[in-house]
């Protein structure tokens, strides 16, 4: 035993004999292994540049102290670690690069690895078709700080995106953020201590299920924003998630849209189109468990003729709600309290499901959304409801849940090639 260790030390070949990890093989043969150490930065970046389609670049166990962002522009490459608590890419001393890892190539997989303390976003994948994040952790280890990077797991303008078994923690914008993308699954993941836990933005055909989102400022957001190339997101299913106690103070730097999300938001839909929310367990979110609003409620200027700022075709069914609504915060919390004060005595307990009352004038008939587009709410136990009539200065605030006893056709399941 003893002599074997001595040989290892002499050979400086930790990968060869210093650990008992299983061998790593990919379609192109042995994985390209990177060990922690002073030259890991250069070796990792060279490996990413020289990689070929099908290569697996394996970061072995340990903490990699990286000072520059890594980037990958070769299709079909996998970045793999030895487990998201065993292989840690630490960017605590990062001096350059706006993200930890930037990927601009198709058919990318990252798995079993952690990316910590990047100055900007943790893992950004831009413009790729085929993206998998599997058992990957993005974290800022000092907890919620406005100086933390914006996004943890961050595919943008991508297609066919799978995020599963992953963790995002501490992002000053969104832990798991999918922007301007199509065909997306986010499942069995955990987001905590972010401003937004999971955010689906300007994205179509997204399934978000089996996730836990807690201790964020807001749990799960489905937003459409103006001024972007992918202007409109349609069809998002949020189901079978646990969304509770999102009670972290909003620590987003002002000027970011999520800075408007009040502490204690469970699910928020803003300018969402065809959003089906079902089978979730939503509780103890102090401002509101589930809010449906228009972008207009934010009172922000925009100039984008193609943008539809209104939510429509929202279907909320078979969820379990409990607690929450007892500590409305922020601008939206203020607005909710103001509106409800017109019809109920203090102290206000915010209903589980709240709409701001903006109605898309292009869809409206007689000032109301017709059956095909209205908000439908069914089978949510004893969940209560309010519509605030913000556009008319709360002139007709309504608690009439029965008016929303309707259904929409179930949205189709998102199916990604090679994943089920």
């Amino acid at each position, binding site marked *: 035993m003893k002599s074997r260790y001595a040989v290892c030390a002499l050979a400086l070949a930790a990968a060869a004999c210093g650990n008992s990890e299983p061998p790593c093989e990919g379609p192109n043969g042995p994985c390209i292994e990177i060990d922690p150490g002073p030259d890991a930065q250069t070796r990792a970046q060279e490996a990413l540049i020289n990689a070929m389609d099908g290569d697996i670049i394996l970061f072995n166990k340990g903490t990699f102290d990286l000072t520059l962002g890594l980037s990958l522009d070769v299709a079909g490459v996998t970045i793999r670690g030895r487990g998201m608590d065993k292989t840690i890419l630490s960017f605590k001393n990062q001096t350059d690069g706006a993200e930890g890892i930037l990927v601009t190539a198709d058919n990318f997989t990252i798995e079993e690895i952690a990316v910590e303390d990047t100055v900007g976003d943790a893992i950004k994948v831009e413009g790729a078709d085929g993206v998998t994040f599997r058992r990957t952790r993005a974290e800022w280890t000092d907890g919620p700080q406005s100086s933390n990077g*914006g996004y943890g797991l961050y595919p943008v303008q991508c297609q066919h995106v799978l995020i599963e078994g992953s963790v995002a923690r501490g992002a000053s914008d969104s832990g798991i953020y999918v922007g301007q993308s199509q065909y997306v699954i986010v499942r069995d993941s955990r987001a905590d201590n972010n401003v937004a836990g999971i955010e689906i933005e300007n994205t179509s055909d997204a399934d978000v299920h089996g996730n836990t989102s807690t201790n964020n400022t807001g749990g799960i957001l489905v937003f459409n924003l103006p001024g972007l*190339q992918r202007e409109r997101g349609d069809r998002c299913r949020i189901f079978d998630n646990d969304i509770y106690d999102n009670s972290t103070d909003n620590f987003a730097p002002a000027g970011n849209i999520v800075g408007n999300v009040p502490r204690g938001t469970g699910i928020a839909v803003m300018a969402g189109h065809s959003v089906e929310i079902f089978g979730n367990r939503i509780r103890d979110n102090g401002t509101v468990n589930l809010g449906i609003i228009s972008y207009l409620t934010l009172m922000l*200027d*925009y100039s984008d003729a193609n943008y539809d700022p209104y939510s429509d075709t929202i279907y909320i069914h078979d969820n379990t709600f409990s607690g929450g609504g007892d500590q409305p915060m922020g601008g939206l919390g203020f607005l909710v309290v103001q509106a409800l004060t017109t019809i109920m005595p203090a102290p206000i307990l915010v209903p589980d499901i709240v709409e701001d009352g903006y109605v898309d004038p292009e869809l409206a008939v007689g000032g109301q959304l017709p059956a095909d587009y209205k908000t439908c709410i069914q089978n949510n136990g004893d969940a209560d409801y309010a519509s605030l009539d913000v556009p008319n200065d709360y002139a007709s605030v309504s608690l009439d849940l029965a008016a929303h006893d309707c259904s929409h056709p179930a949205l189709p399941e998102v199916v990604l090639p090679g994943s089920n």
Partner: protein
Amino acid sequence: MRVGAVLAAALGLSAACGGGGSGGPDAGDPNAEVCPVAAGDGVSFDPAADPCRWLSRYRFFVSTDLATLTANDRVVPYDLNTPLFSDYAWKSRFIYLADGQTMTYDDTDSFSLPEGAVILKTFSYPDDMRQPDGPIRHIETRLLIHRNDGWEGLPYVWNDDQADARLSVAGAQEHISWIHSDGSQRDVDYVVPNKNQCKQCHEEAVDVLGPIGPKARHINRDLDYGAGPENQLTHFADLGMLTGAPADPADAPRDAVFDDDATGTVDQRARAWLDINCAHCHNPGGAARVSGLDLRSAQTTPYDFGICKTPVAAGPGSGGLQYDIVPGDPDHSILVYRIDSTDPAVMMPELGRHVVHEEGVALIRDWIAAMPADPCLAPAPAPATR
């Protein structure tokens, strides 16, 4: 120290000169050459071959004293009206076209360059910027090569003794000091971008790497090629290296020189500065397309170039501000906040800058301050009161 550097460089050079006969890469010697060398004295460049490990090998420059950057035949220098700011580095630019090859003029987009074309840009710091003819040190030379399957960027990092530059696909970091034009001592931790990062700037269409500089509006200007000032478009055309350009350069677009108010208004100079410093990413096909902010000088819709536009994914880059540009109010404009920062989480551009371009920031501040004031508030339709 000095001896060691010279020795290392000498070894590097001898490897570069002697590697041709070995018949392929020598895995045991990282300095061994891997690219073929052509006979004769002309440029030795084969767009289908592996990249050379040493810059001298290509003979783009007359190689007896590489550091003078003395151009070989068919390697023609040019300059830009308003250049990209790169930590105050001085740059020299060349285009190489093989015998008989030409590039094709375009009014707005980059000229169309043939396969086999190479654009070379060398980044250098003089010891003292007040003495342009004094000692100067090259840091890196970037090659942008038009291969048969598209453009490829390659960074070459110069040796300490300036005898040659070595291919360094992973980039490099180097601490640089110089005496600035105002006489002050300046320092920067200069970062040579890695090969992948080429695409982060040189991607003006989605997934297509390409040149940025050779556009009419940037290179429509004079340069002294040895016989007094001469228009660059005319010079390239006279050499037979450019076709389709207007006979009179006055008929071609021409961007302002950002720091020369004889060349344009504040608006023209600011838009020229934003175009070259930002629009390589902030255009509808560039890496920053996801932000919706388009900073090309050709973009005329105010919202699209940032007027009262909210950011999308700014994170800490918002600086607590709401809008990219608040007309009349540079202090509340995210654009100014980000170009005036050196925090990697905040600064723009994200790459290639580690100190603030003070003159550029001053120009952008002046530009925004001169706009008719608008606080950018209420939304357009259905204003709500509360």
